[in-house]
């Protein structure tokens, strides 16, 4: 893999942030950490500007919805250190009634549309975003369709229910 190991990345983060950044695992060798809304911009700035880590490439921003969790909306950042060839995944979970996040457009111009897409589909409001509008869906849509409560098909349809398949 890369020139630095996940453990070295982790040590660096731990030295700078202590326990406000927690590790959730390394699925398929991709270091995954979780932090809070208050810390995220600080963490992203640190990862981007640290002279050894240099996570200068913002691969992706997206979100996920776990309706049964108290903090149901997760915002997921993928960063890539091109120099070290190491990736990192950062997750921030926020509660449904208060889906606000600070914007990452202050660090990367490319975060603009990624955040617009995340807003469009999950309703995550990125505070400070220069132009937070819907991007793929129609402007007058009122819901955030990628949330789990919005079904793909007619919910009254019963022929595709899981209990027909023993689940």
């Amino acid at each position, binding site marked *: 893999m890369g020139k630095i190991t996940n453990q070295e990345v982790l040590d660096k983060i731990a030295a700078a942030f202590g326990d406000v950044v927690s590790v959730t695992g390394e699925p398929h060798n991709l270091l995954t950490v979780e932090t809070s809304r208050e810390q995220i911009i600080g963490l992203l700035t640190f990862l981007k500007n640290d002279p050894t880590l240099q996570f200068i490439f913002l691969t992706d921003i*997206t979100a996920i919805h776990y309706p049964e969790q108290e903090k149901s909306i997760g915002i997921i950042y*993928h960063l890539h250190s091109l120099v070290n060839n190491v990736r990192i995944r950062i997750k921030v979970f926020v509660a449904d009634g208060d889906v606000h996040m600070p914007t990452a457009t202050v660090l990367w111009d490319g975060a603009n*549309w990624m955040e617009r897409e995340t807003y469009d589909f999950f309703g995550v409001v990125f505070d400070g975003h220069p132009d937070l*509008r*819907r*991007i793929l869906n129609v402007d007058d849509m009122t819901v955030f*369709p990628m949330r789990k409560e919005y079904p793909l098909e007619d919910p009254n349809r019963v022929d595709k229910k899981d209990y027909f398949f023993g689940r």
Partner: protein
Amino acid sequence: MQNHPVFFDNDPQSELSTLNLGPTHPATHGVFQNVLQMDGERIVSGVSTIGYIHRAFEKIAEHRPFYQITPLTDRLNYCSSPINNMGWHMTVEKLAGITTPKRVDYMRVIIMELARIADHIICNGVLGVDTGAFTGFLYMMEYREEIYEIYEEICGSRLTTNIGRIGGFERNFNTIAFNKIRKFVKAFPAVLKEFENLFNRNRIFIDRTKGVAPVTAETALSYSWSGPLLRAAGVDYDVRAMEPYSSYEEFDFEIPVGENGDVYSRFLVRNEEMKQSLRIIEQALNKIEKEPADIFHANVPEFYLPPKEEVYNNMEALIYHFKIVMGEVETPVTEVYHAVEGANGELGFYLVNDGGRSPYRLHFRRPSFINYQMYAPMSQGMLLSDAIINMSSLNVIAGELDA
């Protein structure tokens, strides 16, 4: 949030005019709109509107078993759909911990590089058309047809290929397919040479493209550009080299980089990439001969559909067939990010699996979507005719833009 930003100058005394470029305009090569505010021929500002062919693939994918998601990926970048198909298969293989035989890897490499060539043929050919040179486009188009015939021989379809399966291919490459690939690899270098002769040192073409829309490496990285566009700006990031998948580490190829990220550099980088793709295909053809000729998929009965005649006559095959079709296969509860080097850049699949019959969440990192967002800001101050060729050199594919 607020509605469309009102940047139209409604002042009747104003010298500025509003121009709708798209949604269906021959110069946009796809269904997307740019509302431009023009001062004569110069663009003062612009707003991009996308989403005209948004098909909610990420939502649909949450309701489909893994093998049924492949046709959705076809329709992302439909100029090089095999790369998307392979990327998706490899994502599921990474999730399930499947290792594919070497021969499958080489077969995939051949198909993916052919797809890359087909995509670059379109992009560079159309760039020629937009600068007023139709010859190169028509000349190269014949060879895209040959690539499509190779797809057709292998999987039966041409544009939206649905090629390959999780674990390998649905059937082995036959002799006709190999002959067609060899014929293409033999014939195409001369065509590419002729194409380059038409353009590379053509005064008119250079005047139209050189110095148009230059992008520095810093800006390109800040906008998360990837693929030929980022490489034209001088950053040698290629997923095939950085995180080799499908045995790319065994191949000998170079990553072309440009100097100043203008339209001309992008054109040259794409041309050079086609040559490197040919090199890779030649190596793969040599390597494939050393592998046992009857292997075309991994031995993963819980993911790879058995042949139909076995389903009717063999108990185990019937069970596996049923399990795959009904989505009863056990998959690890984890998350995967897998990236492949698509024709336009890093095509990523972020898959969160909860062990159910379909992904809990699937997100496509679509290079066109991320590359295109710089278009409106970079068009400011540009001539309209330059903005048009800038758009064709970005190679925005509407399917990949909107997902």
